[in-house]
């Protein structure tokens, strides 16, 4: 196996990384014990919820508050829902579309990325993205998730204005699921031909060098694109990640497709039932993604869920009918792709627009992404295997810009073009543009380096034989 030697290296590196993590982590905590011990001994935090209640948390008063149990319940649920989007959701959505000989490698990519990003998130990427630092990158105060312990001991729900009414631990998990699915989406572009080892290196480096900073720009307390940050350079509206997640993944995917080149042999989806299961779980889980991004169980979550449902259904029908009209048959893969297109496009808008906006965004997303997965791809001839760029890049950008069009002040506090605020559309365009440029450049550099060191692509024989047998020694019977 040509793929072996290099990955032995990868193996060594990562196991070493883990051990370091445990060790250094232990140090940090060792430190915190000392301070935390005394107060802790006094009152174990466990049954806190039951002891006479301290005042409830809100953004203005973050010390000595109990999280709101209803908001916390919804956010705990959202974590489960969004994790379910990646495993098994996305794995199956993609796995059903590849050839039978590559389905194992495809689903394993989703699973391995979930594990890898979780460990990196614990070590550094959460802190880099969500603690205050510079407008461009956060600090390391939460490296190894240090400090949450003593904060909890002090009875602080969350010293974080981003999620005032829930424990920080829940917010960490919620944001982790976003950091997981973003690289997993990229897998759609490099499917069926990338080395498993190269895939791990790419995803790990990308999570640190691309996702963490961009998440900080748009969502970090002092990010320079964060509309909630009064000092922001450009106030970009991105409720649940149209720019941070979808445009970001789409562009990185396009770079990967360009670097890897076309697949040697391709064919129709080997099992559209898997794709159906995946698309369905993505839809269901997306409620956690969008309604969860309200970080509370109230009016905004309800409206976010409503518009998500409307845009998704509309886009799915739009794609299906366009395909039916142009090719004569409505396909399972088509309606599922349309639904995902709608979910992608409504993501940045979900907290800011209403039902009418959702219908419009749905129609546009269905048609635009259909074109992205067909016309556009043919025009340039890159092999974006499962249309990561065609759906997430195009859909994410369309959604981000339409958010600036259909935003309604009553919902998210910002007016859009429809209410006469043309400027917001420009902000949205700037946001997308900045992310595209940074993402494209850094992703290319990462890919180039990996290609030089261990090679990105499997041999032709392995590609023909199938990645499942060749790389994993497994086969679906």
């Amino acid at each position, binding site marked *: 196996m040509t793929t072996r030697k290099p990955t032995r290296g990868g193996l060594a590196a990562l196991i070493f990384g883990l051990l370091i993590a445990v060790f250094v982590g232990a140090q940090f905590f060792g430190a915190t014990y000392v301070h935390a011990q005394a107060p802790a001994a006094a009152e174990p935090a466990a049954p806190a919820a039951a002891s006479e209640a301290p005042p409830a948390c809100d953004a203005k008063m973050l010390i000595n508050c109990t999280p709101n149990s209803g908001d916390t319940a919804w956010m705990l649920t959202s974590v489960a829902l969004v994790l379910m989007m990646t495993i098994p959701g996305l794995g199956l959505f993609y796995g059903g*579309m590849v050839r039978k000989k590559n389905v194992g490698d495809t689903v394993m990519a989703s699973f391995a990325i979930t594990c890898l990003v979780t460990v990196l998130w614990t070590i550094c990427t959460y802190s880099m993205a969500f603690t205050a630092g510079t407008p461009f990158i956060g600090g390391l105060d939460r490296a190894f998730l240090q400090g949450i312990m003593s904060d909890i001991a002090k009875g602080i729900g969350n010293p974080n204005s981003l999620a005032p009414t829930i424990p920080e631990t829940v917010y960490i998990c919620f944001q982790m699921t976003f950091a997981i699915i973003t690289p997993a989406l990229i897998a759609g572009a490099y499917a069926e031909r990338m080395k498993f080892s190269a895939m791990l290196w790419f995803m790990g480096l990308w999570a640190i060098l691309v996702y963490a900073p961009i998440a900080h720009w748009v969502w970090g307390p002092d990010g320079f694109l964060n509309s909630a940050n009064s000092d922001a350079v450009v106030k970009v509206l991105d409720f649940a990640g149209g720019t941070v997640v979808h445009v970001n993944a789409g562009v990185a995917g396009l770079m990967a497709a360009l670097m890897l080149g076309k697949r040697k042999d*391709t*064919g*129709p*989806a080997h099992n559209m039932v898997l794709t159906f299961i995946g698309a369905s779980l993505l839809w269901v889980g997306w409620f956690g993604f969008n309604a969860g991004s309200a970080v509370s169980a109230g009016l905004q979550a309800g409206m976010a869920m409503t518009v998500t449902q409307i845009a998704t259904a509309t886009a799915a029908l739009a794609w299906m009918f366009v*395909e039916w009209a142009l*090719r004569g*048959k409505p*396909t399972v*893969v*088509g309606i599922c*792709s349309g639904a995902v297109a709608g979910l992608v496009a409504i993501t940045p808008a979900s907290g800011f627009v209403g039902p009418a906006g959702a219908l419009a965004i749905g129609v546009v997303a269905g048609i635009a992404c259909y074109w992205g*997965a*067909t016309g556009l*791809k*043919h025009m340039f001839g890159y092999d974006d295997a*499962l*249309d990561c760029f*065609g759906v997430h890049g195009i859909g994410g950008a369309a959604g981000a810009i339409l958010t600036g069009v259909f935003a309604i002040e009553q919902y998210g506090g910002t007016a859009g073009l429809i209410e006469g605020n043309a400027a917001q559309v420009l902000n949205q365009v700037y946001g997308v543009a900045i992310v595209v440029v940074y993402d494209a450049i850094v992703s290319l550099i990462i890919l180039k380096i990996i290609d030089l060191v261990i090679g990105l692509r499997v041999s032709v024989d392995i590609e023909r034989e199938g990645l499942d047998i060749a790389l994993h020694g497994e086969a679906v019977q």
Partner: protein
Amino acid sequence: MKLIMAVIKPFKLDEIRDALTRVGVHGLTVTEAKGYGRQKGHTEIYRGNEYTVNLLPKLKIEVAVASAQVEQVTAAIIGAAKTGEIGDGKIFVMELDHAVRIRTGETDETAL
């Protein structure tokens, strides 16, 4: 004895089996196959791409019969398998030297 191998359209299997039973043939072996010939395949649409599937699903039937029965059996198969549309398939007849029933060791015609 002869071995009759027929390539047919999948949904014709039951009719053929009945036809064979009527002419006194009580055993056959079926294999799934894909066929390529004059029949044009349909087009599968998949996201950006279209694939013409020109290997079409067929069934391959193998029946061993006494030489005397060949005419009759061939006719029975044609009768049942024919739709008149392109892709109905073929019948091939080969010489069979020898046959054995594993269970009993009976040989040749008695083995069928």
